[in-house]
């Protein structure tokens, strides 16, 4: 039995705090005038007991929202920040790309900058000079070698920097969101290069927001939130969790806002004619509205294509026969995505004062990822214009998807590609 391979990187319960002085003593003068004043500092826990093992040859993604600690983790791995506790081991030559073109000097020509940058990134100056031609060739900047780089366009600069980066042959690469560079053609080249790096067995740690890059390249990914590891797993799964986390935070914020405005005590405190989001004569009151997933659990986030139920609870203030209920779903930009009601369904029957009705609308959430709002309404029978109660945008929810779409809906489909045997040039 052979020993398991040594991981390329071992992160062993790493914690890192930043000390943020509340009032910063910026000058020696202040320090001299108040030698005994204690400097009050807040500590900010950026990484909290993070552990991970990254296998050799893995393309490993680190994802998380802004401020989740992912860049701090990368900087700790790179040795730019020291850690407070825990240990990091690295097996192999490592190079980090947290920013493209570190050490670039605008007043120098491409040659000097390539040597400078490559030296910073870990090549010896001699090796850097030797690879210059290859770098320039990859960057497609052969015609601009003599030009000072301050005269380069930003696209050219990025190309040059990226080309240097991929020429630094390290066994382990730490990369911080530098993928989206250059024009479409160069981007394709970069992606090809990433694919090549991946094939060549180089271990890559990629920190990014871009879930499509994670899905495209990574074997595994780690999700960070508030400095803690949420999950390590395959990119699909992590992508799902990430979007959930991302949107649910947003959804939570919206929900809190909505609740503050219209919920519970607020409803009774606010006379309904003063609530601008409320319409109708008060013959009935919509008490609440909510979303349920297929298991009957109340949710605010749902994956595209999942079965979804939107519900409202209504109490009647007068006797109504066969009331009409509507649920209007709109997207972020006030476009009505769907308008459902029981107009063409059998009558709901007679409701006496004080009786309650629960309306449930079920369908598959085929809409594209994004935020949606539901306006529930109850009206007297007839045209539906004689409103008992309507509450604009009472419910909000988020649809997530792992794949990006530019369409408005995601419908199940089948696509067939067959080779045509006609019209062959013979």
């Amino acid at each position: 039995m052979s020993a398991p391979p040594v991981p390329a990187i071992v992160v062993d319960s790493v914690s890192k705090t930043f000390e943020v002085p509340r009032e910063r003593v910026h000058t020696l003068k202040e320090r001299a005038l108040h030698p005994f004043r204690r400097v009050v500092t807040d500590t900010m826990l950026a990484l909290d007991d993070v552990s991970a093992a990254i296998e050799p040859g893995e393309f490993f993604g680190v994802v998380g929202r802004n401020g989740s600690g992912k860049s701090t983790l990368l900087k700790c791995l790179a040795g730019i920040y020291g850690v407070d506790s825990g240990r990091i081991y690295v097996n192999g030559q490592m190079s980090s790309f947290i920013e493209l073109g570190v050490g670039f000097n605008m007043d120098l020509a491409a040659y000097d900058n390539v040597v400078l940058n490559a030296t910073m990134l870990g090549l010896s100056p001699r090796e850097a000079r030797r690879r210059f031609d290859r770098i320039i060739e990859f960057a497609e900047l052969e015609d601009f070698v003599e030009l000072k780089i301050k005269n380069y366009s930003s696209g050219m600069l990025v190309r040059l920097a990226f080309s240097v980066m991929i020429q630094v042959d390290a066994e382990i690469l730490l990369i911080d969101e530098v993928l989206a560079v250059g024009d479409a053609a160069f981007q394709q080249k970069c992606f090809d290069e990433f694919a090549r790096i991946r094939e060549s067995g180089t271990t890559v740690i990629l920190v990014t927001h871009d879930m499509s890059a994670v899905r495209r390249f990574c074997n595994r990914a780690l999700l960070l939130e508030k400095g803690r590891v949420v999950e390590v797993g395959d990119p699909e799964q992590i992508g799902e969790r990430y979007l959930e986390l991302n949107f649910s935070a947003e959804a939570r914020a919206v929900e809190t806002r909505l609740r503050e405005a219209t919920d519970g005590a607020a409803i009774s405190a606010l006379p309904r004619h003063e609530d601008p989001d409320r319409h109708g004569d008060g013959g009935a009151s919509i008490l609440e509205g909510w979303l349920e997933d297929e298991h009957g659990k109340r949710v605010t986030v749902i994956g595209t294509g999942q079965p979804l139920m939107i519900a409202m609870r209504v109490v009647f203030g007068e006797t109504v026969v066969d009331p009409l209920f509507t649920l209007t779903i709109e997207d972020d930009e006030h476009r009505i995505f769907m308008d459902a009601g029981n107009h063409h369904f059998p009558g709901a029957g007679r409701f006496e004062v004080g009786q309650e009705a629960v309306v449930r609308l079920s369908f598959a959430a085929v809409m594209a990822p994004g935020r949606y709002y539901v306006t529930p309404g109850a009206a007297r029978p007839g045209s539906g214009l004689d409103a008992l109660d309507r509450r604009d945008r009472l419910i909000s929810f988020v649809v997530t998807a792992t794949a990006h779409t530019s369409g408005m809906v995601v419908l199940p489909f089948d696509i067939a590609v067959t080779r045509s045997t006609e019209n062959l040039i013979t």
Partner: protein
Amino acid sequence: MSAAPLVTEGLGRPIKGPSALGSDFRRFRQLTWTLAVTDFRLRFFGSVLGYLWQFMRPLMLFGVLYVVFSQIFDLSGGVRFYPVALLLGIVLYGFFAEATSGSVRSLVDRENLVRKIEFPILAVPLATVLTALFNLGLNLITVLVFLLAAGGRPHWSWLELVPLIAVLATFATGVAMVLSSLFVRYRDIEPIWDVVLQILFYVSPIIYMLQTVTDKGGIGATRAILCSPFAAILQQARHAFIDPSHISVTDAMGNDLLLLVPLAIVVVVFVMGFVVFDRAAPRIAENL
């Protein structure tokens, strides 16, 4: 999440975080050199006149001081080659001032190196000192030309200049380490150091000659002045390089043991500078 491994042997190279020298001394050397050479070249070849300015700066100061202090007030103190001695003083002072005041902001100016890649942090101020040293080399050529023109002749004692400049560079490096790491936290170091440098210019026998000090203030004043490493190095350089009529430091102090004072100051400043810098280094990146 993988469990934290208990076995730590054989897991590879531990990452210790940022430090003054980094984990690889060769890389430290290469980076210091690369930074210094780039800086020097930028200043030297940056503009058509860059080359000229590098020479002109000390020469212009020299011109003014020379006219004022040898034609209007006579401060030559009866030594030979006063103008060359003055120029040498300006050039050595220029090196010290450039190396130290340049290093004050160096870490802040090179923030992206310190914050974006794993970098031996000491390379930054050290490169500043090294660049200043290159400039000093150029300026010494000017001094040499003046000396030969004034009638000075090559002499073996010129070689003494090498260890003298090495000691001065060590001193400057020590100061640079203290200043650059302090500047990260205290931003008023810059104007404070400017004032200190001004004072240093006038308490050192740059414009006036040590001979004048001895004549007017006696041995006590001479000894006091020569306790300053800069003054002692300058005086010895004049003795060795320009003309033996510039009294040597040991003769001026009248006691060989007293020579240990400026030397000790250099050693203490250097060691202290390194300790201060080394202790600050791990957190410089995040405090910038």
